[in-house]
C-alpha cells in the first residue's frame, strides 16, 4: 500500500545499548530541547489587549438593520424563523399606526423579535432568507452571561442604534450591492 506520507517509521524492538540504558544522554537531550524552547516566541495572544484578525466572512452576533432614514427594515414576515435550522428566532408582528412611518419602513413590523444565542448556530441562513435585507450577521462576538435567559436577545440588543450604525458591507455580496443600485425596484426605494 502506498503510504500517505513518508514519515512513517518501522518499529524495531531491539536490546538497548548501555548508553541508552543509562538514560542520562536521553535526559540531557530532552533538557536541551526544553531549554531551547524557553527562547522561542510564545504562541499566546494577549486577548483583551490584542485581538486576532477575524475571517472576512466571520458570522457573529446578528444585527437588525435600519434603512437610510432610520426606520426598521424588518417586516416580521417570518422567513428567517422558518429558515432557521436551530429554531432560534421568534417574532410577533404588529401593524404600523399612523405617524410611525419614521420608525417602521413598511406597514407591518416586528413588535418583538428574539434570537436565542444559545440555540443559534450562526449559519447565516436567516440572512439568506431575508427579503428586506433586515438581518445580518456581524463580526461581533456574543459575550458571555451568567444566566441562560440573558442569551435571549430582544430588539433592544438586536436593532442597530440610529446614531451608531453597524457596518455589514462585508456580508453583502457584490451581486447584492449591484442590485441595490437599481432604484427602480421597489425594494430599493427609500
Amino acid at each position, binding site marked *: 500500500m502506498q503510504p500517505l506520507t513518508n514519515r512513517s517509521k518501522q518499529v524495531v524492538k531491539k536490546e538497548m545499548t548501555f548508553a541508552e540504558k543509562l538514560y542520562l544522554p536521553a*535526559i540531557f537531550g*530532552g533538557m536541551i530541547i*526544553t531549554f531551547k*524552547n*524557553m527562547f*522561542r516566541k*510564545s*504562541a*499566546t495572544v494577549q486577548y483583551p489587549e490584542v485581538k486576532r484578525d477575524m475571517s472576512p466572512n466571520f458570522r457573529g452576533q446578528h444585527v437588525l438593520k435600519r434603512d437610510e432614514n432610520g426606520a426598521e427594515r424588518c417586516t416580521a414576515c417570518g422567513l428567517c424563523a422558518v429558515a432557521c435550522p436551530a429554531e432560534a428566532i421568534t417574532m410577533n408582528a404588529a401593524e404600523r399606526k399612523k405617524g410611525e412611518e419614521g420608525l417602521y419602513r413598511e406597514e407591518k413590523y416586528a413588535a418583538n423579535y428574539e434570537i436565542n444565542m444559545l440555540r443559534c448556530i450562526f449559519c447565516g441562513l436567516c440572512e439568506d432568507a431575508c427579503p428586506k435585507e433586515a438581518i445580518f450577521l456581524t463580526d461581533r462576538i456574543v459575550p458571555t452571561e451568567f444566566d441562560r435567559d440573558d442569551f435571549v436577545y430582544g430588539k433592544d440588543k438586536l436593532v442597530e442604534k440610529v446614531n451608531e450604525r453597524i457596518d455589514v458591507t462585508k456580508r453583502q455580496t457584490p451581486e447584492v450591492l449591484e442590485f441595490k443600485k437599481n432604484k427602480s425596484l421597489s425594494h430599493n426605494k427609500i
Partner: protein
Amino acid sequence: MEAGLLFKIILVVAMFAVSLLVAMYSTFLERKVSAWMQNRKGPNRAGPLGLLQPLADGVKMFMKEEIIPNVSNKALFIIGPCVAMTTALMAGALIPWGGDIELWGRTFTLQVADLNIGVLYIFGITSLGVYGIMIGGWASNNKYSLMGAIRASAQMISYEIAMGLAIIALIMSTGTMSLKEIADQQDAGLANFVYQPLGFLIFLICAFAELNRAPFDMPESESELIGGYHTEYSSMKLGLFLFAEYINMFISSAVIVTFYFGGYHFPFQNEINEALGLSTTMATALGTGIMFLKVFFFIFFFMWIRWTLPRFRYDQLMRLGWKSLIPLAILNILVTGVVMWMNGKIN
C-alpha cells in the same frame, strides 16, 4: 553572650523569612518556567510582570472554603500539613549561608547552628518530612490519598538509603559531618562534585525523589491519583502541603550547593576579594550572594527537569532505586575508599 543570642534570633527570623519568600517566588518561577518551556507567557496580570501573583495565590488559598471530611481522623488531618511545613522549615537551620560578618565589634557566622553531626541532622529532618505526607494521606480516609501516602513512604524510604550511601562517600572524602566544615574545605581547592561525580549524581536523583518532584511525583500523580495524599485537602492546608514542597526545594538546593558546589565559596575568591579590597563583612555578603545564585540555579534545575521528563511508573521507580542507585552508591563508596587508600589517606 547577649549580642550573640540577639544575632542568632535575628538570623533565625531572617532564615524563616527568606525561606518563605524564596518558596513564594519559586511557585511563581515554576509557573513562569513551565510557561516559557511550553511557549506560553505564564502569569503576567497580577502586578508588574505578574510579580504579585504569589500574593494573589496566597489570598486565594486563604479565601477558599475549608473542608474537613466527616469520616477523616480530624486531629491527624490537621497535624499532617503542620508536620510537612515544620520539617520543611527546620532543615534550614544547619545551612551555612556565608562566612563571618563583623557587627557591634564582634564576629558572627551566618549559620544558625553548626552541629558537628549536621549531615545526620539534615537526614533526620528530611526523613521526618515523610510523616506529614503519610499522616495526611492516612487521615483523609480516602483510597487515592492512602495510595499516594503509601507510594510516598515507599519511595522516600527507598531513596533515602541511596542518598545516605552517596553521602557516606562524601563524608569519607571530607572527613567531617559539619556542614560548615564541608563548605570550608571547598574553599581553595576544587568543589566536591569534582571528587564525587557519581555521588553527586546519585544525591541529585535522590533529592528529586525525596522532594516528590517530577519525574518522581508518584505520591501526587495528579493525573492518576487526583493529587494523591492531598486529594481531600482544601484551603490553606492544601497550600501548606504545596508550599512545604517549595521550601524543601529551596533547602535541598542549598544542601546540594553546600555539599557539592562549595557553598558560599567561589573560584578565585581570595584573589577577587583582595582585588576589590572588600572587608570581611562585604566579602561574606558577596559569598552569600554567590551562594544564592547557585541555589537559584538548582531551583531552576529542579523545574527544568520537571517540565522535561514524564513521571516514572511505580515499578520503574522502585527498580531504579533498589537495583541501580543503591549498588552504584555502594560502588561509589568502594571506589572512594580505594582511591583514598592509594593516596595514603587511610592506613
